[in-house]
């Protein structure tokens, strides 16, 4: 299972970077979305995969008896998903406004502020 997830993470990173290197602003945004998903999945995989063991300490014990699924990575991912969702929503509005103002979605034409 680790291997499958690792390959998925790698694939998402590759796809994200490929999309970001295209010239269209929309594809740049899709690339950013894929990158943040890749990072979330990376945390999930790196946190250790344990199947079907909830992180509950039973009565009278001070620590769990068997290996448990670590809840912290999942809490981290939850936060990260919320943040990346907000940021991507902002970026969507940004590219919409940019397209309205500039009439193009070609990154190569956004040169007015370059130096």
């Amino acid at each position, binding site marked *: 299972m680790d291997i499958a997830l690792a390959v998925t993470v790698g694939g998402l990173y590759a796809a994200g970077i490929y999309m970001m290197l295209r010239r269209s602003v929309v594809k740049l945004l899709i690339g*950013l979305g894929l990158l943040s998903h890749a*990072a979330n999945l990376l945390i999930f995989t790196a946190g250790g995969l344990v199947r079907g063991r909830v992180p509950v300490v039973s009565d009278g014990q001070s620590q769990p008896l068997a*290996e448990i699924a670590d809840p912290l990575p999942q809490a981290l991912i939850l936060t990260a998903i919320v*943040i990346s969702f907000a940021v991507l929503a902002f970026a969507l509005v940004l590219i919409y406004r940019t397209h309205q103002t500039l009439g193009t979605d070609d990154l190569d034409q956004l040169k007015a502020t*370059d130096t």
Partner: protein
Amino acid sequence: MMEQVAVILPIALPLATMAISLLAWNSFAAQEVIGVAGSALLLLSAAALMWLVDRDGILVLQVGSWPAPFGITLVADRLSSIMVMLAALVMFAVSVYSLATIDDRRVDYGFFPLIQLLLMGVCGAFLTGDLFNLYVWFEVMLIASFVLLTLGGERGQLEGAIKYVALNLVSSAAFLAAIGVIYAATGTLNMADLAVKLRSFPDEGIVSVLAMLFVIAFGTKAAVFPLFFWLPASYHTPPVAVSAIFAGLLTKVGVYSLIRAFTLLFVTDLEFTHNLLLLIAGLTMVTGVLGAMAQTEIRRILSFHIVSQIGYMLMGLALFTPLALAGSVFYIIHHIVVKTNLFLIGGVVERRFGSGRLAEIGGLQHSMPVLAILFFLSAMSLAGIPPLSGFFAKLTLIRGGLETESYAIVAAALVVSLLTLFSMTKIWAEAFWKPAPNVDVPIVSVNSLSPLRRLALLGPIVLLVTVTVGIGLLAGPVMTMSYATAEQLLDSGAYIEAVLPDYQDPAFLRDETHP
């Protein structure tokens, strides 16, 4: 109790100010008053924090009384408290300045609450003791900065914002990946706990990989070579007040994080990490200043200078001696004040001529002699002319470099310093010295403002120049403070002990989930 309140106040005050000014959404005047009053209160609380840290050493607040490394930890050491103080100072100056310069449309879209949100993110990043919280504070700061950058929706702003948003999101993704890997490797995200575990980490390769991920993540935010190009593409597009607060604070959060990471976490393989940082520092200085020399617009020149000066701050970190690190701290103190101020002055010039292009302006020496003097003092301070603050900062760094016999970086620092002087004299000669050009530019007199607005326009500049000159004249005490900060940074044992009072207890080091 008082100490703990002092640690949380720099985060709670901007939040409260933001909330109250949101309540006053319909009244511009109320928002202005609330914004300035909130910033002034923050300045007081930052001063109190600095005083308490100086008296009691490192202050720690375990949020909800959950002991580290299980809960959220806020830590204020000397570096954090200095950074919070500088952030509060910049914020105060900019919120007064924005009274005179931000147009009603931007106030209508929530300019004042937004800068408070930005400040909350910045202060949170300075005070957190936990990597994931650092990520969250980064995002709070970034989202506020995205909106501030695009507020107004002008063509240049939108183009600059696409680059700024894309690059910052990439660096956030890298940071998040680094957090995932470091958690997998050590099973903790608390910085003090990480410091303990990374020192005895068996696999040096993983630690180096992590160090590089953090260099990429923080380096992009700090705008180091070769990851800086989003900065000159975007910083000159928003209104001046926004540019100034970005220039003063945002890249410095990246620098602060680099300093924190490479004095506390990654200190096992100095040969590799800090030599790489030294190389990055040198290249950042040189490319930044060369970029600045090619520019002909005030704010673009200043934007490139931010890049080149990040190099100086990294130089002290990379040399990693108490003296050099003290130089870095001194440089940050000097730079935040001076750079914000230069942007504010550039804003007054732009306001007068409706443009910042050097070819279209001139003659300010006669029409605004006071502004000319204020600019001259700040520019010379940036270039490092004694007895202003920049001179002592650079002197300390160069002495630190000579002490470790790193002659290449010392030579680079000296040459870059000379080139900085060149571009500052260029602005001086073009904007202030040469006669005003005879093109049809509508010249807006600053005198047309009401006296109160004029005070809001020029007061912050006078305040920040006073601080710069003050740092220069009181270089002794500031140097003592910087040196104490550097020593505290190098003594990571004290930091660990403050956050984890009983870390020798094996129960704290046990690690069931990550064999």
